[in-house]
């Protein structure tokens, strides 16, 4: 367990997150078919494949550069709402990571900044049945556990995201294609919230492991 990731270690964690999303394409497709138009899995996978290629090619001086690279790749290849939202998340997180290592403090700040950027971009708020309902509790948990070191903070964030995604089942969508579904979306989790969970879980596992 490393409490402070180097640029290379951070890169490995991001690649693991990308691989986890790619492996979950089918699950995300099903989730978006239930309450959206069924393209969330394809879009996320397209973006994450591009992210891996870009990470391979682009040199990074800071960990922030890595996050920005991922964000730019997603935003320019995913398309749809998720391209904008997840692209903004990674780019926003990258902006506050100017060091060449990532620690618990940086991780918590990055999640908070990412959340802020997403809200500024999409005008949604927690409770609107979007990925923010996984992201916001994750950022809070990371902040709360920042003192306990990176592995603990990362796992806490992943767990909070998962619980948040679960709670979206009981929400009526306010944003995205599912918003006009009204009550019919009840019982189904938000696809973007599942993506947040998958990303944070893979990130935590790499750090732990």
């Amino acid at each position, binding site marked *: 367990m490393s409490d402070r990731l180097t640029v290379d270690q951070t890169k490995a964690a991001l690649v693991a997150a990308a691989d986890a999303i790619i492996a979950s394409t089918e699950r995300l497709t099903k989730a978006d078919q239930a309450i959206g138009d069924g393209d969330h899995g394809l879009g996320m996978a397209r973006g994450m494949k591009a992210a891996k290629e870009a990470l391979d090619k682009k040199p990074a001086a800071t960990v922030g550069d890595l996050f920005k690279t991922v964000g730019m790749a997603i935003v320019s290849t*995913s*398309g*749809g709402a998720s*391209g904008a939202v997840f692209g903004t998340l990674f780019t926003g997180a990258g902006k506050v990571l100017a060091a060449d290592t990532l620690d618990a403090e940086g991780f918590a700040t990055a999640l908070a900044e990412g959340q802020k950027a997403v809200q500024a971009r999409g005008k949604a708020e927690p409770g609107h049945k979007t990925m923010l309902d996984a992201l916001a509790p994750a950022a809070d948990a990371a902040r709360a556990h920042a003192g306990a070191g990176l592995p603990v903070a990362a796992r806490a964030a992943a767990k909070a995201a998962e619980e948040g995604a679960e709670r979206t089942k009981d929400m009526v969508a306010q944003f995205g*294609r599912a*918003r006009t579904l009204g009550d019919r979306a009840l019982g189904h989790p938000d696809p973007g919230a599942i993506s947040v969970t998958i990303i944070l879980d893979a990130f935590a596992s790499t750090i732990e492991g």
Partner: protein
Amino acid sequence: MTKVQKIINDPENIVAEVIDGLVLASHGRLRKLEDAPALLRTDIEPGKVALLVGGGSGHEPMYSAYVGRGLADASVCGNIFASPPPNHIHAATVAASQGKGVLYVYGNYAGDVMNFDMAAEMAAEDGIEVRTVLVNDDVATDKPEDRRGIGGAFYIVKIAGAACAEAKSLDEAEAVVRKAQASTRTIGVAVRAGSLPETGEPTFELGEGEIEIGLGVHGEPGVERSALMPADELTEKMIDRLVNDLPFRRGDRVAMLLNNLGATTQMELLIVNRKARQILGEKGIEVARTDIGAYFTSQEMAGFSITLIRLDDELERLIEAPCESLPFTHR
């Protein structure tokens, strides 16, 4: 449900092949942008206010087939039912810009709004001014900020094309397109689902004998699911909802678009037209122009939408103005 048989090649290449097909069908009037799935006029008048449209593919002829003289100058093509990313929109913006600013016209969907907004910010950094008019004509949703862009997009794009062709400034073009947007209302009905071309699977399910009024172009739910009813009864329900929404008033002059969502016959639309005119006539609303056809589709969805736009002299002149594109030529 049986899968829908599609005449395609590799589903991954649909958008690229559609763009090639359009460029070839244009006989030199359109070109593909080198580095993005976007279409541009080859003969954009220098110094004009540019009009850029776009969104997810799969609704053809909307939006790409509406690039042409007197219509849009550029269109950006997302994947099927997915907004294009900002870098593609930005590249098309730069290519279309003639120094007088660029007007964006597209449908009010979360993904599109975020991506086009990001592109507009990128354009601003290049010193290109962008204004946006969102198409939000669908009366199926109550809150205006939630309203989707559907069939009425045709009239807005047509008017925007004519306005940008003659406008002296981006301000001037934006103002008239906003007026068009505020004057347009649409209501749709689906009697059978379309399918996602990648999978051949229907995008939603309707029971046998069931129809849904107000259903969106990606299968978003509408205002009322009910049993199939005679054309006259359905038309009356739809027109009533439309007229009460704006509201359209006795003495108003309008254009009416009956838009085929994909698999509905012109025969059916003509039957609907007959009843619609009768009802509007009784309400004292004068129909000055009628458009009937497949203007904004949702794959082979069966159903149609009715759009009414309230005309004043300026909007009527712009709607009747010459234009040229694959599906709609009107000189």
